[in-house]
C-alpha cells in the first residue's frame, strides 16, 4: 500500500509539471530508442547471418582447405566423398556445391581498370548442386531443376529481369572457367523456375542447376569436383559431433560448422558494428541518465519545502525517498516503453540505410529483434533510472526538515 501511495504521489508530481515531464519522457524515449537500436545492432548481423546459414538446413561445411570458400582448391572426387560422408551415422544429408561463373549469350566478359569493384559486370554465378538432395535455393515460381535434370536451370528474379526470361525460356550460358583464353563452348538451359538464393545481393545474377550441368559449363573439365559439401547432422547429434566424425575419417579436409563461421564473422567482419553499437549504447545510456538525473535534481531542489513539509507531517524518510525513486521509474518507464516502438521504426530506417552497403545479401539484416535485447534494454534502462535517482534521493534523504522549512519561510 505504501509503495502504491508513493507511486501515485510520484505520478501526481510528474503530471503537475506537464511540459517538463513530457519533455523528460520524450527525451528518455529518444535516447531509449537509440539504446534499443544499438542493442538490436550489437547482435543483429550475427543473428541474421546465422539465420541465413541455417536456412538451408545444413549445419556444417566440408572444404579442401581452411581458405575462404570458393577461393581455395576444390574437393576432388566429390561424389565419392559425399557418399562416404553421408554413410557416417552422425550425418543425415550431404549436398555438393560447385559454383561456376558464366555470361549469358553473347554478353562479353568485362575487366576493370583500377580497383576491382565487384559491380555488375554481366557475370552470372551458377550454383551447381546435387539435385537429389534438398536444394540450397527456394523456388518462388515454376519448378525446381530436378524436373529437368539434364538442362534445367533456376534463376533469380534479377537475372530473370535482365534476360527477360521466365519458366520455360531457353537460356544460353558460357562458362568462365580457368583462364580466359580457353573459353568452353556455350550450354543451353531451360529455365524451370524462379528461385531465391540466400546470399544474393540486390544486383546479383544467380542461377542454380545440377552439379553435372555446372561442370558441363566448364567443358566437363574437373567434372567430379565441388567447392564444398554442405552437411546436415542427424537430429540430436549436433554439428560438432558430425564435424568430428568427418574429421576422424578425413583429417586432411577442413570442416567448419555454422556456429564456427558465425563466431569467426562475429569477431572479424561484424566487429565494426559491434564496436559502434557498444560505444553508442554507452553514450545514449549516459545521456539518458544525465537527462533524468538533471530533471529530478532540479525538480527536488525546487520542491524542498514540500518535501520538508511531508517529512514534518510525519512521512518517513524512506517514504519520501521512495517517492523520488518512483518518479524516476515512472519517467524512465514511460519513456522507455514509448522508446520501443520508436526504436523499431528507427531500426527499420537505419537497417534500410545499412543494407545499401555493397555486397550485403538481401536476406541479411543489421537490426534484428531478440528477446534478449529487450531484456538487456530493460535492465540497462532500470539501472539508468536507479542511478539517475540516486543523487536526488540522497538530497531528500539528508534533507534537514527544520532548516528547510525555515529557509522556505525566509525565501
Amino acid at each position, binding site marked *: 500500500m505504501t509503495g502504491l501511495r508513493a507511486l501515485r504521489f510520484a505520478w501526481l508530481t510528474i503530471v503537475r509539471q506537464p511540459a517538463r515531464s513530457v519533455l523528460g519522457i520524450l527525451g528518455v524515449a529518444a535516447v531509449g530508442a537509440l539504446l534499443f537500436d544499438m542493442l538490436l545492432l550489437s547482435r543483429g548481423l550475427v543473428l541474421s547471418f546465422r539465420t541465413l546459414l541455417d536456412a538451408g538446413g545444413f549445419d556444417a561445411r566440408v572444404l579442401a582447405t581452411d*581458405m575462404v570458400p570458393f577461393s581455395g582448391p576444390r574437393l576432388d572426387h566429390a561424389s565419392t566423398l559425399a557418399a562416404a560422408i553421408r554413410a557416417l551415422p552422425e550425418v543425415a544429408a550431404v549436398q555438393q556445391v560447385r559454383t561456376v561463373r558464366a555470361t549469358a549469350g553473347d554478353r562479353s566478359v568485362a575487366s576493370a*581498370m583500377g580497383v576491382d569493384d565487384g559491380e555488375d559486370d554481366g557475370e552470372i554465378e551458377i550454383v551447381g548442386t546435387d539435385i537429389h538432395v534438398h536444394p540450397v535455393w527456394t523456388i518462388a515460381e515454376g519448378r525446381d531443376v530436378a524436373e529437368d535434370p539434364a538442362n534445367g536451370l533456376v534463376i533469380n528474379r534479377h537475372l530473370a529481369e535482365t534476360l527477360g526470361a521466365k519458366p520455360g525460356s531457353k537460356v544460353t550460358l558460357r562458362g568462365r572457367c580457368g583462364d580466359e*583464353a580457353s573459353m568452353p563452348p556455350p550450354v543451353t538451359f531451360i529455365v524451370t523456375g524462379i528461385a531465391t538464393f540466400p546470399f544474393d545481393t540486390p544486383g546479383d545474377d544467380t542461377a542454380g542447376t545440377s552439379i553435372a550441368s555446372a561442370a558441363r559449363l566448364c567443358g566437363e573439365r574437373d567434372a567430379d569436383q565441388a567447392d564444398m559439401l554442405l552437411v546436415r547432422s542427424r537430429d540430436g547429434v549436433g554439428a560438432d559431433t558430425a564435424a568430428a566424425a568427418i574429421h576422424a575419417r578425413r583429417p586432411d579436409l577442413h570442416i567448419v560448422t555454422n556456429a564456427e563461421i558465425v563466431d569467426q564473422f562475429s569477431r572479424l567482419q561484424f566487429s565494426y558494428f559491434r564496436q559502434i553499437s557498444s560505444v553508442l549504447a554507452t553514450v545514449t545510456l549516459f545521456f539518458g541518465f544525465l537527462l533524468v538525473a538533471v530533471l529530478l535534481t532540479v525538480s527536488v531542489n*525546487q520542491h524542498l519545502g514540500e518535501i520538508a513539509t511531508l517529512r514534518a507531517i510525519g512521512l518517513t524518510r524512506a517514504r519520501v525517498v521512495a517517492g523520488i525513486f518512483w518518479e524516476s521509474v515512472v519517467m524512465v518507464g514511460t519513456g522507455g516503453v514509448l522508446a520501443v516502438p520508436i526504436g523499431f521504426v528507427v531500426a527499420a530506417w537505419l537497417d534500410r540505410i545499412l543494407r545499401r552497403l555493397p555486397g550485403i545479401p538481401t536476406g541479411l539484416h543489421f537490426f534484428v529483434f531478440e528477446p534478449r535485447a529487450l531484456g538487456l534494454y530493460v535492465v540497462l534502462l532500470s539501472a539508468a533510472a536507479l542511478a539517475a535517482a540516486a543523487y536526488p534521493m540522497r538530497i531528500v534523504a539528508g534533507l534537514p526538515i527544520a532548516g528547510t522549512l525555515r529557509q522556505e519561510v525566509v525565501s
Partner: protein
Amino acid sequence: MFAASRPRAATWGLIAALLVSVPLVAAPAEAPGILISRQLAEARHLAVGDEVRLAAEPSGTASRQFRVVGIYEPTPDPLRFAQPPLDVRLHLPDLLALTGDPADAASQDAVTAINVALADPADADAFARDVAGRLPGVTARATSSPDARTNTFVVIERFHTAIAFVTVLGSAVFLLALMVMLVDERRSTVAILRLMGFTRRRILLQVCAEGALIALVGAAGGVLFAIAVQGLFNRFFQWRYDTALVFLRVTPAVVWRSLVIAVPLGIGASLAASWSLLRRTGAGLHR
C-alpha cells in the same frame, strides 16, 4: 557460403594462401626480394633478411623462395580494419611466376588490372572512353570515380548522419526540458521585471541571449570533450585492430556544424520555454 565468393573474399583468400612462411637456414643468395607488412612480420616472427617460401597453393606445391628485404606499414584500409593485413608485396614478374600455370603461357602474362598514370588526370574520362572504343571487352575507369569502396563510405556516412539526427533530436528535447526548468525557476524574477514595466520583447531578448550563451558554451564544451577523447578513442581502436587508421577526427567543419546546429537549437529552446511564461500577465506569474 556463397557470400564469400565475391571478389574481395577471393583477394583475401589469395593473400592468405600466398604465405607459407618457412624461414630457411641456408638459402641461395639470389632469392628475389619481397616486402612484408608489419603485421605479417609480427605474426610470423619474420625480420629483414629472412628467407621464406611462398606458394599460391595451400598445399605448398610449386613454392618459391624469397627474401624479406623490407617491412612496411600498410596503408590502412577502412574496409578491412577488422582483419590484420597479412600482406606480401612481390615484383609483378615474381607474382606471375608464382601464381601462373606453367603449362599455360598466357597465364604468365595475365593481370587483374593495369593502372595508368595520365599526363593530365582531368583526361581520365576521355581516356576511359577511348580505351572502351579501341579495346572491346576491356573496361577503363578513372580511379576517382565512384565504386563499391566509396559506396561503402557513403552508406556508412549516411548511417552516422541518421544516428546523429536521432541524437540531436534527443539533445534538443533535453535542452528544451532544461530551458523550461530554467525559465520556471525565474518565474518570480520575470514577474517582478514585468511589474516593473519590462516588455515581453525585452525579456525574450534576454532569454534568447541566455539560451544562445548556454548552447554556445555547451557546444564548445562538447567540442573540447570530443577533442580530448579523440586521442583516447583512436588509440584504443588502433590498438584493438592493430591499424594506423584514424577512427575519429574533430575537423573544423565538424566544429562549425556543431555550433551551427547547437546555437539556433539553444535559442529556439529558450524561446519555446519562455513563451508560455510570458503569455501570462505579471500578476498571474506570481501564482
